[in-house]
């Protein structure tokens, strides 16, 4: 017994980071090393902060996406959810509504969009892919109809100052998303809701027999995804000073890519918050490096595609270990 007690502290420490997360981390280190060698100034503090800032919106969306994917679903509607949330809060601010209220309204829109997705999936029993494909068009259309297709311009400087500020030398957006990541990690690892998500996605029938509240769990996942899409929208319009109804186009694909690179399985029941964050930073670092190298955007797309495929191949080869 004394032997196991001696070994325990190390084992506890190692359990915090899984084999799969370690793999994603190695991937990130390799990519950073390659760009560091090829791009002068890549490791400059300013550029590293840039990478984090550029990754923050995708990381925010990808965290919500990870929870939905773990539950066995998918949320294709995050981009339009963000757009709808953005144009409604922006137009409220332009109309003179105090911005805490306008931001709250934006979050409420995100939660409502998630609620609709969740109810259609959990209570009506439609397939998540089709439901969110439908709401992808619907929410986008609502944003376009609401604005007549025009951007909402002239956001108050006070609002912009919130999201463009910095804390501890880091852009506030990065700090906020890091905070969200910590909360998401705690939720997944330390709360019943996290266990329920993994159980519902891992074996819904068994979870039902064991008394897991299936519908509530799924709906909560979609609502969190909607809320984080709304948060991403606030960060973006704070940075741009305007809200376009077409913002967030193809955001869902980047978010799914980050989650998948980080080890989430589209079959459900598997996924990691740490992995997803690393996945988002991998995508961000790669785009940043290629841009600095003046590589055409066609090749950036190619690189993104290859990274996703490589991550999946490595997954396949190492499956069942750790």
């Amino acid at each position, binding site marked *: 017994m004394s032997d196991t007690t001696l070994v325990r502290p190390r084992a506890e420490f190692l359990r915090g980071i899984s084999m799969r997360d370690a793999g994603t981390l190695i991937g990130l280190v390799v990519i950073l090393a390659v760009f560091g060698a090829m791009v002068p100034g890549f490791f400059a503090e300013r550029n590293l902060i840039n990478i984090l800032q550029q990754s923050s919106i995708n990381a925010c969306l990808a965290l919500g996406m990870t929870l939905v994917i773990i539950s066995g679903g998918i949320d294709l509607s995050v981009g339009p959810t963000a757009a709808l949330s953005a144009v409604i809060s922006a137009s409220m601010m332009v109309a003179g509504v105090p911005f805490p209220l306008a931001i709250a309204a934006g979050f409420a829109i995100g939660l409502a969009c998630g609620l609709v997705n969740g109810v259609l999936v959990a209570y009506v029993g439609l397939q998540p892919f089709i439901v969110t494909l439908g709401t992808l068009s619907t929410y986008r259309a609502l944003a376009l109809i609401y604005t007549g297709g025009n951007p909402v311009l002239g956001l108050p400087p006070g609002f912009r100052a919130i999201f463009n500020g910095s804390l501890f030398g880091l852009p506030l957006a990065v700090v906020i998303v890091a905070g969200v990541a910590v909360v998401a990690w705690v939720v997944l690892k330390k709360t019943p809701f996290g*266990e329920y998500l993994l*159980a519902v996605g891992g*074996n819904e029938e068994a979870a039902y027999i064991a008394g897991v509240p299936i519908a509530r769990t799924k709906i909560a996942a979609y609502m969190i995804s909607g809320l984080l899409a709304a948060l991403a929208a606030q960060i973006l319009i704070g940075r741009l000073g305007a809200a376009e109804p077409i913002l967030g186009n193809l955001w869902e694909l980047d978010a799914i890519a980050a989650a998948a690179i980080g080890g989430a399985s589209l079959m459900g029941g598997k996924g990691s918050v740490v992995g997803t964050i690393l996945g988002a930073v991998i995508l961000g670092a790669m785009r940043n490096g290629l841009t600095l190298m003046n590589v055409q955007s066609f090749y950036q797309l190619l690189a993104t595609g290859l990274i996703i495929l490589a991550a999946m191949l490595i997954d396949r080869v190492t499956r069942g270990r750790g």
Partner: protein
Amino acid sequence: MSPRLQFQGISKLFPAVRALDGVSFSVGAGEIHGLLGENGAGKSTLLRILSGVYRPTAGSVLIDGKPVTLANPVAARAAGVAMIHQELQQVPRLSVAQNMFLGHPLTRGGIFVARREQERRAAEALAAIDPSIDPAAPLGTLKVAQRQIVEIARALLDRARIVAMDEPTSSLTPSEFERLAQVITGLARDGVAVVYVSHKLDEVFGICRRATIMRDGVVVDSVDLNDLSEKAVVAMMVGRELAQEHHNSHATNKVTLSARGLSSATKVRNVSFDLHRGEVLGIAGLVGSGRTELLRLLAGADRATAGTIAIDGKAARFSSPRDAIAAGIGLVPEERKREGIVPLRSISSNMALASMGVFAPRGVIDHARLKRVAVDKMGRVNLRPFLLDRPIRLFSGGNQQKAIIGRWLAAGTRILLFDEPTRGIDVGAKAEIYHLIEELAAEGHAVIVVSSELPEVIRLADRVLVMRDGSIAAELHRDDISEQAIAAHAIPQTQTPAAQSARQ
């Protein structure tokens, strides 16, 4: 004359595991050869080698005296080996004929599938064994027993010289087994060598003359079953004598659960009974008689259309398993993989799933406490190896079952519903599960056991309800419980076995 099938010194190494070690035995043409052993003894690995899924690390397979290379399933099929799997590998939406020609369809000019011709040939093959099956019908509309027959017809179609059957009867009723046994005997009469794997010893003794017994990857012996008792064979399988277990009753007369006039939309019709503290109530009946459906009503998994349930005299209404769990009821389901475990999650997580609220009183899970309870409950159900953080899918069926039982103990469940508690579980682990059920009853739990295995019902039950067509056909008290009594009530009066065979 050389035997039809011969294994010579077959070994199979996996990383860190020696699954087979020098396995040698032979099966003659026209012989039905039993292959016996506990889970993990190496039977499935050997069958996978025979059907070309695995390559042996050492040794060779001989067919009619000639060594054959079974590099992949197609090669094995070409060599005359047909494999009939435990979980049928068929496509339910395709027709019977399409399934029989799956992978190598008949074509016209190499482009178009010749459906008519396929159906004609399928009908020919089926005619010999079960002409009532329509080759054009979607396979999904057939009963499991008929689907087995289709697999066998497919083997005939391939002119298989060797047919390997892995647990073919795990979901068949006794009369369906009789039919299948006739078909298998017919195959053997035509000179096919049959390798027959089953956990049900009475079946193996019924249709096999010889059997090979495996344990831990090696052959214990190839024996003539006429010379041995079932008990001796079990001893060879597990490597020790299993003590003959006697039934102990702990039933009280305090009613814990009472059901009155329960009916469901599916099968259950007007079922009433009382369950007492410390009692083990057996529910017997044919597959499809509504036993599983009754348990699902009691566990809140399905909703009753009529009737009432009372727990300790208080009326209870269940709209989901959550309600039933709150009332102290837990279901240990029949299909462990589908309804029991969350495969990727650890033993501890699977154990804690039904009682998360207890472990997270303030929203965050108290992992230290969860671990303490897991250590306690898994020790209680005697789960070994004691690796609580390991994904449950890596454990044997018996251990998975123990973890599910531990789940209900952790949730403070007082009424345990077991649906086929030892399905797919080793002989050795079976005895442990029986013990556990008895101990739970002794501690004052009320237990219901649904089982198709009559010896199991007789071993465990203080009282037996026999179900037929969704209703309770009889209630048997301990002294009246016997296989004959149960069978007499379970089989519909208009359809006794004699009447059935007369019709055919």
